[in-house]
Every structure is written in structure tokens, then in C-alpha cells.
């Protein structure tokens, strides 16, 4: 794999993870548990979709086969999607929604922090902007994990259940593959060992404050999202998200 091929792949991963989590959050539009929470969720979703577009636009330029950002988002099927499995997991209750957000935000924050200093100027520019947003995303999701974990008996039980349910998807966040290694070596992406240490450090700190128990370090981990092997949920997300472009390709008047 050349460095350019690795970069194309890596950009799609960033874009797809942002896009799918943004789409997941948007499912809560109109039915979030409180008005302020709904605004917050939609704000976060909007940031993520905006970041996805920035990454897709750069990816489209490098891929250079006539597809633009919209085509990359709306005309690829599940096996071409490169998002982290964490991002496609269903919203379930609010503990799962915020737990998923927290595990992702912690990964996103440290990843973007590193990308903001990338040797590739375009990557650095997009990441520096996204980092400002990921910072308040992480602040908010970690506050929720603490509030629910260190809250009532029921909120604690639900938050611990959420950690247990989602733990199996955390390994993928911090386990590098060939692409991650190449991108790190090129001075673009984070050093995998550092990313893992930063992520684990923050997650342990927040879960401890939240009186929650993390999963086992040697727990079985589901991986494959980065290579297009997804859980059963992604197809349903895409079916809804891509419906209009599939039914009316290139429609320009709504």
C-alpha cells in the first residue's frame, strides 16, 4: 500500500465515522428526553456531518474518479463504508447513547489533536477546526457518563450496562492496522501506542469518577468496520440515509 492509498482509506474512515454517528444522533430529532438534550444532540450531529463533508471533499479529490462528497456519502454500500463499529450501534436508552458518544469522543479528541499537527496541511486544517468541536463534545459526554454513573441506583445500573454492552467495540478504536501504521509513519495520524495510552487514561479516569467498572482489557473485541465488515445495523442506517439519492439519483430539485 502506498502512502496516498493509505491516506484515501484513512480519510474515508474519518468521514464515514463522523457521518454514521451524525446520522444515528439525528434519529433522536423530535424524540430526545428533554428539549436542551435534543438541541445538544443535533448540534453535535451537525458538527459531525460538517466534518464528514470536509473529509469527503478531500477524499474525493484524492480518489479523483469523478465522485464528489455527496456521491461518496450516498452511493456507497455497507461493505464500502469504513466507519468504526461503535458509531453504528443503536441509540437504545440514554446511557447507551451517551456511553457510545463518550467512547467515540475520547478517541476522536486525541485523534484530531494529533491530526491537527499533520504534515499534510489540508488534513491539519480540517482537524484543527474539528478539534474545537470535538473538545466540547467530549466535555459534554464525559459529564453525562459521570452524572449517570454516579447518580441514582437505576442510572448507575443502566450506565454500567451501557459500558458492558459497548465495551466490545472499543478495541477497534485503539487497535491499529496497516493503514493506521502507514498514516502514523507519514507524520499524519497519531502514533498508535500513544493514542491507545491517551484513550485508556482518559476513559479510566472518567469511569472511575463515575463509579463504573470498565470491561476487561483482554475482552473479545469486534473489529472490521475499518475494512467494511459491519454489524447488522449499518445496512438499515444506509437504507434510510441514502433513500432519496438511490430513488432519485442526481435529483437537484426537492
Amino acid at each position, binding site marked *: 500500500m502506498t502512502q496516498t492509498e493509505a491516506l484515501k482509506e484513512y480519510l474515508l474512515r474519518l468521514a464515514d465515522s463522523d457521518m454514521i454517528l451524525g446520522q444515528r444522533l439525528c434519529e433522536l430529532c423530535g424524540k430526545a428526553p428533554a428539549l436542551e438534550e435534543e*438541541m445538544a444532540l443535533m448540534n*453535535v450531529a*451537525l458538527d459531525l456531518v*460538517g*466534518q464528514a*463533508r470536509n473529509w469527503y471533499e478531500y477524499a474525493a479529490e484524492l480518489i479523483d474518479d469523478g465522485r464528489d462528497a455527496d456521491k461518496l456519502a450516498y452511493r456507497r454500500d455497507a461493505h464500502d463504508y469504513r466507519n468504526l463499529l461503535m458509531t453504528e450501534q443503536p441509540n437504545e436508552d440514554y446511557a447507551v447513547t451517551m456511553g457510545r458518544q463518550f467512547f467515540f469522543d475520547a478517541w476522536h479528541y486525541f485523534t484530531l489533536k494529533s491530526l491537527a499537527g499533520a504534515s499534510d496541511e489540508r488534513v491539519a*486544517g480540517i482537524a*484543527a477546526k474539528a478539534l*474545537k*468541536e470535538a473538545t466540547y463534545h467530549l466535555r459534554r459526554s464525559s459529564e453525562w457518563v459521570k452524572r449517570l454513573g454516579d447518580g441514582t441506583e437505576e442510572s448507575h445500573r443502566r450506565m454500567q450496562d451501557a459500558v458492558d454492552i459497548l465495551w466490545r467495540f472499543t478495541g477497534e478504536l485503539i487497535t491499529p492496522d496497516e493503514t493506521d501504521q502507514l498514516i502514523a509513519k507519514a507524520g499524519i495520524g497519531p502514533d498508535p501506542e500513544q493514542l491507545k495510552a491517551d484513550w485508556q487514561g482518559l476513559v479510566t479516569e472518567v469511569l472511575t469518577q463515575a463509579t463504573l467498572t470498565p470491561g476487561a482489557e483482554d475482552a473479545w473485541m469486534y473489529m472490521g468496520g475499518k475494512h467494511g465488515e459491519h454489524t447488522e445495523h449499518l445496512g438499515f442506517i444506509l437504507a434510510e440515509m441514502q433513500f432519496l439519492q438511490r430513488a432519485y439519483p442526481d435529483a437537484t430539485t426537492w
Partner: protein
Amino acid sequence: MPQPGDSDTRSAVDILIASDRVPANARPDLLTEDDIWALLDEVKDPEVPAVSVVELGIVRAVHWDGRDLSIDVTPTYSGCPATELIEELIAEALRAAGFRDPNINQVLTPAWTTDWITDEGKEKLRVFGIAPPQGSSSKLSLLGEPEVIACPHCGSQETERVSEFGATACKALYRCRECLEPFDYFKCI
């Protein structure tokens, strides 16, 4: 024909309707770069119409050689849905002044920060009822406590944050414990 420096009292919709009406007798070649900045200062943010896109720090640069004009703009947030509309409003204002083919470039670097909002812009936000961003974005900590925000209505510092997120990406929701009015705070990023 609108003259540079004229106060443009038309609404965003009027400007959109007036599109493709480049005045036949306009002489944009006589305008200076300062005139163009003044012209852009009349373009209001569609979501916060109290301030202009120049006061918000969205317009980053004007490149004008007397023949070709290009404007650098930067989005406030990655997903700000007003970005396209703002670019369109800028293009319309320039066309109305006689520029036939203004070039609008989107630049991401350096990333927009509330530090770029001018002092005049901040005061206009406050008068409009939006508490302006306080302090410097560089002092924000990851897990820090929210800052003390003065109520834009009565000036009291006895305020509380209702939600870190408000009606648009750039605002948070606060409430004043003195005058009991809710208000928006323009978040510091």
C-alpha cells in the same frame, strides 16, 4: 445604483430576489479595497442579523487588483448551515455593486475563533440580546468549569448555564438569576 458606503437596508430575501441584476452603469473598477470592505460590512449574518460578516470575522481577506476580485471566507463551525447562504449573500452584494464574477473562496486555516469578532461586533451582539464571547479561546480547558457570563439585559453576573447548546451551533443557553430573563451566549471557541 448603490454607492459604496451606502447603508443597505434590504433584507436577505430582497438581496436574493435581486440576484442577477448587475447594474449596467456600475463602475466597480473605481472602487478601492477599503470600499469593498465597507460593502461587505453591510452583509449581515443570516442567523445573527445584528452583526455583519466582517464584524464576525468570517471575511478573512479581500484580493482586488482593479479587475479580478476574490474574497476569502471561513466557516464558523464545520457544519454551520449558514455558510452557503453567507457566501451567496456576499456574492449578491458584490454583484449589486457591479462585480460580475466575484470569486468566493472558502478557507479553513487558520480555524475561525470568536477572538476575531470585533469589539464593535461584540457590543452589537450584547445590544441584540446575545451575550458576547468572553475571554480568549486559548484559555479553554478540556474539562473546565463554565465561565461567568454577564446578562446582556441587566448586566448581572448572577447567571446560570441552562445548556451548553442553543438554537444555533455558535450559541449556548443561559438564564439570569437577577432579572430572570433567558438569553443566548455566543460561545467562545
